[in-house]
């Protein structure tokens, strides 16, 4: 008999559920510090550059603080949608594709109406963006409900398809006709202000996508804690058999969770392409759809947690850029750092779900 045993808790510990993300962050800082040391950087300086300087450094702070909301907005928006599905055991990991398609469809709708100055233009594009992401997520949803096809693989394959569509439209259908043949669409902020996602309050990074993210968090919170659908989602994830007996329709659940996640990812794409990115180009997407998966888990699949996790992850992005600039750290180091964070979190979850017992078990009498 081993000396250390795990004993399943009847219900996950609330204390540890809240503590593990913090423990994971600390563990990641330590492991990350070791990694930075191997890469030849001073670990303490690296950690400070990533976590402290973007917010409080007098020189970089004013520039990077607004970036916090700019980067957190799409992450929170996408992760909030993903978490609904993850809680129900529906694994949509192709949010990156839904995010790209939302951007393509939304931007396409706007560019088709160029040079309209109607105040209804931007709302229309927002709608089209949500629709684009929704439709892209409906492919795995319908294949899953009609044929039982694995949604993990289908949604992921569709990311590669979406990336190819993006490459195609940015040098074809949506290319800037005045762009002298260069790939990429018109720049929304420069050439098409009526269709651009502007900063609402100057120098805060607060754009419409961030507003949408906050609204999504609130709605998701209400849905999960007050609405019947939220109950069905939780039940399906925690006790699938009980959910079936309670009359929860798996088909409706799959369509709802994938559809919502797709629409939110599509929104994130539209806000990104019309705002911070500025134009449809072959690489406007920056992988938010994948990082959002980490954000969803780091936030414990809980809307409020996701809000905090999104801000933290945005900080590592900005800090990573700063570390690249100041310490010559490779860009990939921060991706590795984010991956580590997810590992530590998943590993620490053992404390929430199990009691650690030391010593040999007593024989049952």
């Amino acid at each position, binding site marked *: 008999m081993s000396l250390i045993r795990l*004993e399943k808790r009847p219900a996950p510990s609330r204390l540890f559920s809240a503590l593990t993300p913090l423990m994971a962050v600390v563990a990641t800082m330590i492991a990350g510090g070791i990694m930075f040391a191997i890469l030849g950087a001073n670990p303490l300086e690296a950690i400070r550059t990533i976590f402290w300087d973007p917010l409080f450094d007098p020189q970089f702070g004013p520039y990077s603080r607004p970036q916090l909301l700019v980067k957190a907005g799409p992450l929170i928006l996408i992760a909030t949608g993903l978490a609904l599905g993850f809680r129900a055991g529906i694994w949509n990991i192709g949010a990156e594709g839904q995010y790209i398609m939302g951007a393509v469809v939304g931007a396409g709708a706007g560019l088709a109406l160029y040079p309209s100055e109607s105040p209804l233009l931007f709302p229309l594009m927002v709608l089209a963006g949500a629709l684009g992401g929704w439709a892209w997520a409906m492919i795995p949803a319908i294949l899953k409900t009609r044929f039982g*096809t694995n949604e993990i693989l289908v949604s992921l394959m569709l990311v590669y398809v979406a990336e190819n*569509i993006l490459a195609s439209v940015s040098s074809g259908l949506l290319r800037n006709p005045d762009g002298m043949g260069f790939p990429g669409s018109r720049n929304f902020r420069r050439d098409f202000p009526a269709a651009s996602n502007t900063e609402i309050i100057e120098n805060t990074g607060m754009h419409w996508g961030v507003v949408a993210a906050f609204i999504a968090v609130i709605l998701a919170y209400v849905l999960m804690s007050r609405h019947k659908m939220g109950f069905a989602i939780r039940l399906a994830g925690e006790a699938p058999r009980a959910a079936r007996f309670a009359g929860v329709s798996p088909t409706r659940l799959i369509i709802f969770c994938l559809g919502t996640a797709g629409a939110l990812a599509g929104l994130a794409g539209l806000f990104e392409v019309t705002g911070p990115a500025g134009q449809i180009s072959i690489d406007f997407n920056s992988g938010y759809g994948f990082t959002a998966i980490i954000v969803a888990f780091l936030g414990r699949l809980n809307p409020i947690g996701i809000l905090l996790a999104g801000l933290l992850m945005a900080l590592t992005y900005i800090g990573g850029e700063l570390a690249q600039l100041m310490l010559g750290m490779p860009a*990939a180091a921060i*991706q*590795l750092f984010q*991956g580590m964070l*997810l590992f530590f979190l*998943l590993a620490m979850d053992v404390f929430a779900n199990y009691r650690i017992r030391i010593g040999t078990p007593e024989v049952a009498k």
Partner: protein
Amino acid sequence: MDFGSINPILLIASLMVASTPILLAALGEMVVEKAGVLNLGVEGMMITGAVVGFAIGVNTGSSWAGFATAAVAGAALSMIFAVITQVLLSNQVATGLGLTLFGLGLSSLIGKPYVGIKAPGFSKLDIPILSDIPVLGPILFRHDPMVYVSLLLVAAVWYLLTYTRAGLVLRAVGENHSAAHALGYKVVRVRFMAIAFGGAMAGLGGAYVSLVRVPQWVEGMTSGAGWIALAIVVFASWRPWRILLGAYLFGGITVLQLNLQAAGSTIPVEYLSMSPYLVTILVLVIISVRGNHGAPGSLGRVFHASH
């Protein structure tokens, strides 16, 4: 478009080369899933194998050393997954995804100095007499050794799973881990070994991409091959020979679309490039319509021996 420029013999010959990375990775993942574990980190382990294999290959000048180290690197990475899912009992889907994200970051970090360098050569076998047979010679007998190693591995895995005691234990653990545990088999130990094997195979597959198929290091160069390997395991209904069939089918599509691109097809390049992914989806749908036969009973479930 000029179809005449596509040589069918060369097409089939390059099919075998294009399929080998997916074949190796899928075969490894099949063994992992046969033991009841779903590791979605194949892509991450492949890309790590690709960069490590390439780096060692370049530094030692030997592709064999590259392949060996890539297998070790893939297995080492898979041990992170094994510890977190088997000892700390985490969710396998989330952990596998984490492994893929981690592997992608790790590989571009390691690969930075190797961008734009040429791979060391890996000579083809050119088996005497056999390779001179018309048509069959160039298709079957003029490849590099890894192509034949991958075929031998299919046979070995098939034999081990079907006819040996170890294979039987592995399958028992995958079908019903509680029953296997009650019979006294070490569920966690068996799964650790299966996961390590899967990691080594994914590493080999990745190294084949960077050392033979491309052959150089490009960031993110496996571009979804690991995910296609996962799909092929489902396609193959967890049977080794069907893995071979599936991998060659997908390799064929990849090679065909690349040839069409080179032949100046009127279909835009982007639509040709997305075809392997669309075909994967199509095949998954057909398989699921037919019913998902053959999935191991305990696949993806957490095993916790309460006593």
